[in-house]
């Protein structure tokens, strides 16, 4: 009796191994996508905030899907930009003869955040579909970069620098120190008071 050529068992073995591997790899990828970091963080700060700028933005979003879903929203939201000095980058007060030399990093933008409590919603249209956070929060997030550019082009950092010097001068003058020299590291250079 002739032996059967190419037993089906071998075909199953050859094709099942890549299938099993593919399923395994897919499940790994899916599992990775579902894991999100949910850690709390506590950290020490050394920042002196001396100026704040508020931008009021109008945002319009429109999402149309599957021919009949029509979702639109129009609202305003404030972005709060704070500026000041990161004292951990080096802040010193040194006596130099009869005067005090204050050395500090030039002010920078410390935070930009959209203030959700300021949202003024003009309308939210939902036809055959509910508005989701991704329909508008992506735009709210992306606007931050434009706001940052605008803030950097405004007088915010100069004002933060002026306020810092006024604050320190006020305190040192109160303690009888009249001559103060400011040296900022980064943009600007220095000034006398």
């Amino acid at each position: 009796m002739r032996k059967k050529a190419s037993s089906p068992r071998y075909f199953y073995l050859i094709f099942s191994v890549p299938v099993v591997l593919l399923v395994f790899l897919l499940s790994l990828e899916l599992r990775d996508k579902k894991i999100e970091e949910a850690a709390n963080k506590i950290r020490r700060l050394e920042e002196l905030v001396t100026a704040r700028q508020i931008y009021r933005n109008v945002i319009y979003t429109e999402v149309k899907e599957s021919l009949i879903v029509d979702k639109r929203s129009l609202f305003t939201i404030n972005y709060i930009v704070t500026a000041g000095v990161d004292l951990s980058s080096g802040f010193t007060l040194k006596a130099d003869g009869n005067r005090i030399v204050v050395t500090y990093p030039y002010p920078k933008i410390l935070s930009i955040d959209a203030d959700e409590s300021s949202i003024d919603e003009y309308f939210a249209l939902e036809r055959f579909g509910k508005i989701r956070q991704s329909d508008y929060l992506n735009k709210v997030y992306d606007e931050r970069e434009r706001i940052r550019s605008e803030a950097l082009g405004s007088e915010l950092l100069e004002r933060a620098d002026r306020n810092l010097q006024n604050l320190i001068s006020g305190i040192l003058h109160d303690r009888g120190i009249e001559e103060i020299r400011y040296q900022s590291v980064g943009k600007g250079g220095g000034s006398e008071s």
Partner: protein
Amino acid sequence: MDRYIAGISLPSLSFWSHRKESAYTVAEEIGDLYFLNTSEYRLKLIFPHDFVDRDLSWWAVKEMYERGFEGDENQQKLVEVYRACLDVGIDPAVDVYDFIILTAVVKAGINISGTVFENPSRYRDGLDSYVRIKGEGVEKSLSLHLPPSQITELYIEDRKPSEDNFPDAKLTPGQWRDLVSFLQPGIREKVIRLGILKDADENGRALVGKILKDSGFAEVYFRERKL
């Protein structure tokens, strides 16, 4: 994403979808403020689960809500949380798998604005009640009373839902605003319980003490009360 007509899920085809976004700035306002921030807590929170006890019976809260039951302060808070859930389209008594993720950023430190430190010349005694210097040369010391720390900034960190894999909650901008406004007092209480003000006080003393010692003071003493 869910797209339905009479229970049939439609395929996602790009020519059936259209997105449009536009934005512009209408006004800006610049102001002065003086915060010495010395501690930051960043909390990832899950609404409603992080705002109630874990073993809570949502069915009991639902019943209290539907009956208009007044109860004690704790029960009233639970009913308010349940109402906030319904306002954003979540009913935890029916489906515990719905939630909304948010990251709260809270900073604490000394609010110098409006105090004598901001402008000592406006006050008759200046900083005399706050700063005292003794000795000279290498033995010079300073006694200092710092105002107690307070929460200076509290905001919900901006999030891009398309870049994370948390559920995309069904909330209009107005509903999102109302939810955030409702949660902020609870977040404030939570971080205070966790110790943010104590951390801010300790960090503030360490920071100010270091700056003053580097400037030539042999010792820096912090006093609880005005001098």
